[in-house]
C-alpha cells in the first residue's frame, strides 16, 4: 500500500518541487535573495528561480566547497544566499565551509539539501542524505527544518527567507502525500499536532509523517488513541510539544528517514530524559548505509514503514 493511502492522503508534489516553485514565486518580492548552485539546479529545483532571475543566480560547477563559501561571502555583503545541492553533497562535501563560512559568522545563508533519505531510490547510497540532520544540527545557531509535504514546504520556504540567520531545509525527491492545506502556516520551531490522541504520540518529520499517520489509522482501528506530531523543526526543537506528549500520552515513537545517530530521535530522547522520562521507541535507518533499488522497496526493506511504526507503538502499548 502506498504511503499515506491508509489515512486517505493523496500524492502531491515532491518537497523539492514545492520549494522550487515557492522560491521562484518569492523571487520578485525578496530582492536580496541570490542562489548558488553546484551543477545540480535541475535536481534541487533552483532552476526556475535561476531562469527568472539570471543576474541573481550563480552556478559554480561541481565544487561544493567553493559553492558554500561563495554563498557565505554573498551573505556577508547583505545578500540572502540560498545554496542548494543534494543533502549528501551539501552537508558532507562542504561541511567545514558551512561551519566556518556560514555558521560561525552566523550569516544569512539558507542551506537547502534535496534527495534526502533512502527514498531517492536507484542512485544508491552515494547520493542519499541519511546523516544530514545530524550534521546540520551539529552547527551552532543553525535552524534545521524537515518538511513533510508540498504545501508546508512552500510555507517553510517563505519562513526560511524571513528568518534571519543560517538555516537548513531538508527536501525529498519522490512525490509526497499531501497533509496540509495549500494556505497552511509554518512557524519555525513550533511542531504541528496533525492528529490528536492520548495513549501514545508518534513524532515524525519529512515523508515519515505520512507513515506515522498511516500507523495512527491502523492503531486507532485497534482501539488506541494516537497523537501525531509533525516535528518539522529539529532545531530549535519544540520542547513544550515533546513534554506535553510525554506527560499526556506517556509513550512516544519517533520516526524519521535518517540514521539513528543525531537525528530527531536523539533530540527527542534528550528532552524526554531531561524533562519527563517516559519510554520512547525509535524507527529509523539504524546504523547502516542502504543500497540501490526502487524507493518504496527500500523503505520497506529498511523498515521505514507504517508497519514498523505500528510494531514499535504496540511494543510500548502492551
Amino acid at each position, binding site marked *: 500500500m502506498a504511503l499515506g493511502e491508509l489515512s486517505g492522503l493523496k500524492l502531491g508534489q515532491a518537497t523539492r518541487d514545492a520549494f522550487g516553485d515557492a522560491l521562484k514565486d518569492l523571487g520578485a518580492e525578496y530582492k536580496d535573495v541570490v542562489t548558488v548552485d553546484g551543477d*545540480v*539546479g535541475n535536481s534541487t529545483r533552483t*532552476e526556475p528561480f535561476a531562469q527568472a532571475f539570471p543576474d541573481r543566480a550563480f552556478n559554480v*560547477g*561541481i565544487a561544493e566547497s567553493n559553492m558554500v563559501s561563495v554563498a557565505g561571502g554573498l551573505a556577508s555583503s547583505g545578500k540572502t544566499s540560498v545554496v542548494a545541492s543534494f543533502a549528501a553533497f551539501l552537508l558532507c562535501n562542504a561541511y567545514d565551509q558551512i561551519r566556518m563560512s556560514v555558521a560561525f559568522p552566523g550569516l544569512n545563508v539558507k542551506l537547502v539539501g534535496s534527495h534526502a533519505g533512502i527514498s531517492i531510490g*536507484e542512485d*544508491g547510497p*552515494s547520493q542519499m542524505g541519511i546523516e544530514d540532520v545530524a550534521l546540520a544540527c551539529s552547527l551552532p545557531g543553525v535552524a534545521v527544518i524537515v518538511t513533510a509535504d508540498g504545501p508546508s514546504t512552500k510555507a517553510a520556504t517563505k519562513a526560511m527567507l524571513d528568518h534571519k540567520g543560517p538555516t537548513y531545509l531538508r527536501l525529498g525527491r519522490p512525490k509526497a502525500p499531501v497533509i496540509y492545506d495549500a494556505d497552511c502556516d509554518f512557524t519555525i520551531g513550533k511542531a504541528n499536532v496533525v492528529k490528536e490522541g492520548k495513549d501514545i504520540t508518534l513524532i515524525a518529520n519529512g515523508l515519515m509523517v505520512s507513515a506515522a499517520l498511516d500507523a495512527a489509522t491502523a492503531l486507532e482501528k485497534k482501539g488506541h488513541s494516537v497523537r501525531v506530531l509533525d516535528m518539522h523543526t529539529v532545531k530549535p526543537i519544540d520542547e513544550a510539544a515533546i513534554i506535553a506528549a510525554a506527560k499526556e500520552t506517556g509513550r512516544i515513537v519517533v520516526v524519521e528517514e535518517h540514521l539513528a545517530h543525531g537525528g530527531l530521535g536523539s533530540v527527542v530522547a534528550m528532552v524526554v530524559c531531561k524533562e519527563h522520562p517516559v519510554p520512547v521507541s525509535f524507527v529509523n535507518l539504524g546504523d547502516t548505509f542502504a543500497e540501490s*533499488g526502487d524507493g518504496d522497496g527500500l523503505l520497506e526493506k529498511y523498515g521505514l514503514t507504517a508497519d514498523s511504526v505500528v510494531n514499535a507503538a504496540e511494543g510500548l502499548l502492551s
Partner: protein
Amino acid sequence: MHGPRTSPTESRSHPGTTDVPLVEAFSHAEQLTYRLGRASFRPKPVNNTYKMDEDQKLSIDELKKIATTLRKHIIEMTTAANSGHPSSSLSAVEVVTALYFGGFMNYDAKKPDWPERDRFVLSKGHAVPVLYAAMAEAGYFGVELLKTLRRLGSVLEGHPNLKRLPGIEASTGSLGQGLSIGLGQALAARVDKTKSKVFVVIGDGEMGEGQVWEALAAASKYKVGNLTAIIDQNGYQQTGATKDVLDMGDFQKKIEPFGWHVQTINGNSMEEVVDALKTAEAVTDKPKMIVSKTRKGYGILPLLEEAGDTNFHGKPLPPAMAEKALAMLS
C-alpha cells in the same frame, strides 16, 4: 565459445544487507564473454606477475567490436533499469575497452582480490554501466547480471560499491575522490614493492572538484609513475555544456605545470586511445594524464540530436529509442 564460469560471491558482507538473491541467481550462469572467438581473456601468470601473451593481445578491430558490445550493454541495462547515465557511460567506452581488453591492465577476473593486480578506479561513478559491461565481458560475472542493474538486491548498484562487488576498486558516486583513492593505491604498491599500476577515469565536469587538484599536486610530489589518469572530456556536465557551467578550457595547459606527463587525444578513436596508453606506459618517473576528448553519448549521437538533447544527462533511453540505438550499433 564460452569463457570462464564465474562465481561472484559476496566475500565482503554489507551491513544491513544480508540477502543478495540476484547475485545468487546468476552466479552459475554461462559466461558469454566477448564473443570474439578467443578462448579466454584471462592473462596468464608469468614470473609471478600476470602478463598477456602476445598472441592473446587483441587487434584494434577486435577492440572496436568489444566497444560496440559494451555500448549495447550500456543501453540495454539502463533502459531495463529505467534509470542511469547511458550518455556518460558511452563517451568512455573506448578508454575502458582498451584498458580491460587491450593488454594494459593485469587482472584476473577469477581472482579479483589478487594483491598484485592493476586497479581501475571509475571516479565518475555514475558512468558505472560501462564498467559493469566491461567486467561482465572480462568474466567477473555473467552478462545476465547486467539486466539487474539498480534493482533492489542486485550487486550492480547505481554507483560502484567496492563492498558488494569483487573487482570494483573504489566506491564512487560523490565526484572528486577517485584520483586520490588511486593515488593511495599507487603508493601502496610502492610500499609493497609490487608492480601494480592504477588507472583512474575522471569526468570533465568533475574536474571542478578541488580535491582532484589536491591529488594532482600530491601525485606529483610522490612521482607516482604507476598512476595514469584519464579525463573523459565529453564537453558536458549535469546542467549543461562545461563551457557554460564551469569552463576548464585546456586541461593540458593546466595540468602540465602540476608536473604530470600529459597527452591530449581523441578519446573515441580506439587507435589514439591505444597509442596514448602505450606512450603513458613507457613513462615511469611521473604521473600520467590523458586528456581524452570525447562526445557524450558517442555511438548514438544522431539519436541524441534527434531528441534535441546532446547532453542527455542521467536519463535512460526510452524503449523505442533504445531499440533504434541497438539497431544503429549492429
